[in-house]
């Protein structure tokens, strides 16, 4: 902004970050497209150009569609609950109550603890002779459920862990936004005789629309790339029941060393993530109410 800064100075400041971003983002980003047209199957040191073969194989692989479907089930199951429940919790812990800070800290703890540890803790709860099955059996006479070993339940059991771990994170984002809601608006709706739910629907939700957008974008994108929970708890099984697209990419690339094929799957994921963030932002911009 000032004529005193020499011509090259800005670029010198940018250089170190630029080197890292070019080496570990921009070049790999472009390369991921190139890789998707190559095959590593015959010789992993000398990939060959195969044109669209990887994409054709990918679209003909039932497992790919299965993992894609699983990823969307994940998204649809996890995002609305995270967006809504975290907001409800944020409103709850935004009250002036004795000891409220301790509750905030406790709800945030799952965020801070390694997902690997969380996965292990839940695996122990979900175990066939684990505490969850014991309680259900004794309290409701429900016979043992293979939470992580039954194809009907595995995906949903892992989803529950993702939701459990995410609530505190989004709660804090909402908490920050809640401080900006003018208090007199609540008083006004009190005078109008609104109940708690009406009050928040009329005042809090419209005011928090930008934050709700942010939370849904962040949580959708992180749902699309879910991996560690699955790796730790089910390894994608049983019978691919809990395998998501990132897990599939990981497996094909680093277990089967089929880098080209996995890159093609990566490009598909990239396209989906980009379309999603655009839709998400557009959708919420239309519904955004002007902030008084």
């Amino acid at each position, binding site marked *: 902004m000032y004529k005193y800064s020499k011509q090259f100075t800005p670029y010198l400041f940018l250089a170190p970050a630029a080197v890292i971003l070019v080496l570990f983002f921009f070049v790999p980003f472009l390369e*991921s497209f190139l*890789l998707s047209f190559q095959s590593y199957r015959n010789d992993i040191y000398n990939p060959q150009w195969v044109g669209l073969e990887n994409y054709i194989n990918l679209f003909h692989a039932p497992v790919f569609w299965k993992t894609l479907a699983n990823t969307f089930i994940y998204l649809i199951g996890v995002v609305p609950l995270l967006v809504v429940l975290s907001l409800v919790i944020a409103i709850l812990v935004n009250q002036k109550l004795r000891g409220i800070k301790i*509750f905030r800290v*406790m709800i945030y703890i799952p965020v801070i603890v*390694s997902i690997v540890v969380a996965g292990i803790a839940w695996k122990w709860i979900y175990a066939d002779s684990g505490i969850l099955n*014991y309680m259900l059996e004794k309290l409701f006479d429900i016979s043992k459920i293979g939470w992580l070993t039954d194809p009907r339940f595995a995906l949903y059991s892992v989803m529950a862990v993702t939701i459990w771990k995410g609530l505190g994170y989004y709660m804090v984002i909402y908490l920050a936004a809640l401080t900006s809601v003018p208090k007199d608006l609540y008083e006004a709706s009190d005078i109008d005789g609104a109940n708690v739910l009406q009050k928040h629907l009329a005042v809090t939700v419209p005011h928090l629309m930008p934050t709700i957008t942010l939370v849904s974008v962040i949580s959708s994108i992180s749902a699309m790339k879910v991996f560690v929970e699955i790796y730790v708890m089910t390894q994608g099984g049983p019978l691919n029941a809990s395998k998501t697209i990132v897990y599939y990419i990981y497996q094909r690339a680093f277990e089967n060393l089929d880098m080209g094929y996995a890159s093609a799957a990566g490009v598909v994921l990239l396209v989906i993530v980009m379309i999603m963030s655009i839709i998400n932002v557009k959708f919420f911009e239309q519904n955004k109410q002007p902030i008084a």
Partner: protein
Amino acid sequence: MNLKKILAYIVLIILAIISIGPFLWLLSTALKSPNENIFAYPPILIPQHFTFENFTGVWKQIPFMGYIINSFIVSGITVFLNLLLSALAAYPLARMRFKGKNMVFYAVLATIMVPFQVIMIPIYLMVLKLNLVDSASDFAGFAGLILPFAVNAFGIFLMRQAFLGIPKELEEAAIIDGCNTYDIWLKIFMPLVKPALATLAIFTFVGAWSEFLWPSIVLTRREMYTLPVGINDLQGVFSANWRYISAGAIIATIPILVFFLGLQRYFIEGTTQGAVKE
């Protein structure tokens, strides 16, 4: 009014139990001696025969100290590089006019749109090409773990936001006093953005500390394992010995829990700055 409060507390207590219950159950299992049934009904939360045997047993078999040191090295250097590179890059973006500024800005923004998982394969091949792998040397292994995460858009935007908030009179005064651009950055701006630096440091540390996917891809030698990779291994090593697995998982949680409880104020408040990225 009072009934409302009681109701709020009941919901809060349920939420708290759901949040920390799984860890308490893990702790309880880790503290039970081998002659106590960990599958008892009703489930026993407070162990009847307290023992630290599981902790000492698992500590002897798993090189936790090594994992923790590796994690500290990786997280510490990652934090340092992120602070330095973000603060450097953010400075001209916030305070200077130069050719290509908009392009740089949008290029940084674009990196947010592309998740690491999508480009991890070419990043892996890049790391191999540069020979930044643990089979070459410990140093190369650490470099390969750290460099892909040495800077990111979140950090650059956070620092840019902080720099934008500094009044330009300070800058002008420094220029009149004969400071060069580098001095202004280091001596005037950096001290004024300490809160933003602290926020960035804390979040980068936690992120690096819990990173699992990348180290599990690039690491080949057990001595180089970071904590999350090491803990995941517990499941394989102690297949169904849930007392040992639990004890190991609890040990692994202690460092980050201490870090969090000590700085929890920054976590709950700090995200405020992260949330308003624009």
